[in-house]
């Protein structure tokens, strides 16, 4: 018994010493040093949303190019990709790990509205800028989150532009809509209605789809009976494919128009068995085989640095989400600090690379309201129908 007491006392003593030795509050490590700037991104590399994982790898390509060209003001970018499997619980984990253990200066991209929602307050509390979330969510920009800079056009703006295109360019009067029954689909619905109201028109059919529904026969029949000439889709890839297949079976052939979330034509073409040909979509970036000089440069670099990767819209989206951050880091100069970069980000004006023009001010962090309009040609080729188009009805701009 004596021995045990001694043991107990000594263990407690050792532990107390350890505590005192290390009790100094451990502030998160700085996000940069003289040689490198650490930047992170979460994105689903595995799991159900894995096809969107190429966004995070696209940003890697941009940072590799920047590093090849000598880095930013003498510092190289060290880039961390963390797989969160599209699960907010894991997003919180990987973000905390990157911030508190690795020391990250800023985040870019980040797939998934829910994943972003789970970490946005944490990032703001730790004063870590987050540029170009690859999801559109009203909650990201309203109320203003000083550390969050959005590049992705809002679904509402996109639906507005698409509806305008249908009425003015395609001259179609009967527009139906198939929308996913959540914020994504409903934002699109609002936008389409808003635009049609300016022409004193309304949707001939508004059909909600549950994200998990696998049988859309009744919905498609309702659309068919409404006589819609054009059907606007704000749904997920699976629902879109089922809708197209069901419509083909019942002989319903409207002009399908979809949001940019389905603008990966090779993927959609493949999973729809070729039915995707002729579908018009919005787009957040230049077409993959564009002759835009920057696109040519990035395409060549991708062939050289990451030959395994398929050069597609989501991969290049990773570049355009991260571009403004690189620009701001350059502007901030050698004397780097979060404040300097925030100032540079807040003063980005008409900045354009392979995406839309980005404008940020102290009071407005939604960077753009513009989308392109593209069409799927034979063999999943891209045809550009209309260049960058802004939404003159965008509600967030008026404030």
């Amino acid at each position, binding site marked *: 018994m004596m021995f045990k007491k001694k043991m107990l006392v000594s263990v407690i003593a050792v532990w107390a010493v350890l505590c005192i030795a290390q009790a100094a509050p451990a502030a998160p490590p700085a996000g940069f040093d003289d040689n490198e700037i650490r930047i992170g991104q979460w994105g689903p590399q595995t799991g159900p949303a894995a096809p969107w994982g190429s966004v995070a790898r696209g940003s890697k390509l941009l940072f590799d190019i920047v590093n090849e060209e000598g880095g930013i003001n003498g510092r190289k970018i060290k880039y961390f990709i963390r797989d969160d*499997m599209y*699960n907010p619980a894991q997003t*919180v984990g990987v973000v905390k790990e990157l911030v*508190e253990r690795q020391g990250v200066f800023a985040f870019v991209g980040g797939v998934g*509205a*829910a994943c972003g929602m789970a970490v946005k307050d944490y990032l703001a509390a730790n004063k870590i800028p987050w540029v170009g979330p690859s999801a559109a969510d009203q909650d990201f920009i309203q109320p203003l989150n000083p550390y969050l800079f959005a590049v992705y056009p809002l679904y509402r703006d996109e639906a507005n532009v698409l509806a305008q295109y249908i009425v003015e360019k395609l001259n179609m009067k009967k527009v139906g809509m198939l929308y996913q029954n959540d*914020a994504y689909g409903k934002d699109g619905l609002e936008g389409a209605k808003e635009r049609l109201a300016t022409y004193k028109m309304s949707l001939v059919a508004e059909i909600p789809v549950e994200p998990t529904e696998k049988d859309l026969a009744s919905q498609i029949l309702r659309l068919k009976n409404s006589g819609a000439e054009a059907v606007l889709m704000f749904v997920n890839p699976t629902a879109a494919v089922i809708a197209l297949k069901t419509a083909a079976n019942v002989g319903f052939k409207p002009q399908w128009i979809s949001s940019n979330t389905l603008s990966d034509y090779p993927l959609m073409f493949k999973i729809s068995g070729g039915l995707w040909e002729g579908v018009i979509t919005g787009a957040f970036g230049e077409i993959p085989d564009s002759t835009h000089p920057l696109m040519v440069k990035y395409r060549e670099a991708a062939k050289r640095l990451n030959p395994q990767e398929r050069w597609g819209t989501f991969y290049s989206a990773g570049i355009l989400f991260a571009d403004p951050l690189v620009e701001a880091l350059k502007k901030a100069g050698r004397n780097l600090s979060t404040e300097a970069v925030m100032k540079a980000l807040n003063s980005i004006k008409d900045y354009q690379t392979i995406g839309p023009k980005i404008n940020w001010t102290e009071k407005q962090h939604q960077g753009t309201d513009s989308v392109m309009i593209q069409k799927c040609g034979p063999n999943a080729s891209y045809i550009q129908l209309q260049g960058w188009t802004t939404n003159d009805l965008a509600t967030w701009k008026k404030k």
Partner: protein
Amino acid sequence: MDMKRDYYEDIQLFQSGVVLFWTVVLLLVLFTLPLVVPNYYVYLFNIIMVHIILAVGLNILVGSTGQISLGHAGFFAIGAYGTVLMMTLFQLPFILAILIAAFIAAFFGFILGLPALRLEGPYLAIVSLGFGLTIMHVIGGVDAFGGRMGIKVPPLDLGIKQLGISWILTTDFHKYYLILIMTIIMVVGARNILKTRVGRSFVAIRDSDIAAEVIGVNLTIYKTLAFAVSAFYAGIAGGLFGFVLGFFDPFTFNMILSIIFLVMVVVGGLGTILGGIMGATLITYLQYDLLKNIAEVPYFGALMVAVSKQWFTLVGLENFSSMAIGLIMIGIIIFEPLGMFGLWIRMKKYWMTWPF
């Protein structure tokens, strides 16, 4: 060495002075741990402890009663949503909210226990799988629950609003102590359940339900009770989990999560409290930390990156995470059916006679 002379000796919480000593040491370590480790680990510990509560509860069902459940993410979700909604809609204090949510989960556990009276093995697995998925989709379809966009968790207020008492825990550090205390209560509770008549009935059902019935165990009551108790644990864990995250959507509680829970129990060791604890700790640590950052592990990380570049696809390294957990599971089943608990017993035996 483990000879028991009477019943009271068997139900003693601390079997000997040695156990008491090491328990005190362990508690001291647990209570001082967040003071010495970086904040990130505190978050990881919180997740681990939440998973421990769940795994211990699941082990009562799977390990001790011999019923299978692939739907525990559903109970987990009920706990998380229930607690948050009780607090936001009815302004209930946290402790009351989490208890009510856990009882709701237990009620659903009872419901799921009913088909278990007739089904076993793979059939029960399918029913429980369906249950978990149904919960996820039902929650996603109800706007009051935040729909598919998820809900934001209110501040974790331990006080009672109606009396004007407020004690808000904001940091991971503060939440750690709340979760630690809850975990200790739940684990001791589980141990006590298993040491009583109820626990022995569970074990009797697992070993042979016909024999159990013959010796007077009411199968209807005890099978549904096992489900209810297990679901109660999942509910408590879910309620805490919501506050660890701060925001969640229905998809957080997907089928993969149910399977991971089962992996924790199998890897840790079926039918033992310690097994659940060890399994939850190991699998959570691997999943949230080590396998996520494998590229940064010294030496081994570089090797894996090279192997991945040479033979795997683009996301080979990320997929290695699932492969590793699968391999651990297969390895455990082949080489150590008792799981990590079995390894622990062997180690204990070895050291007991060391060095002779």
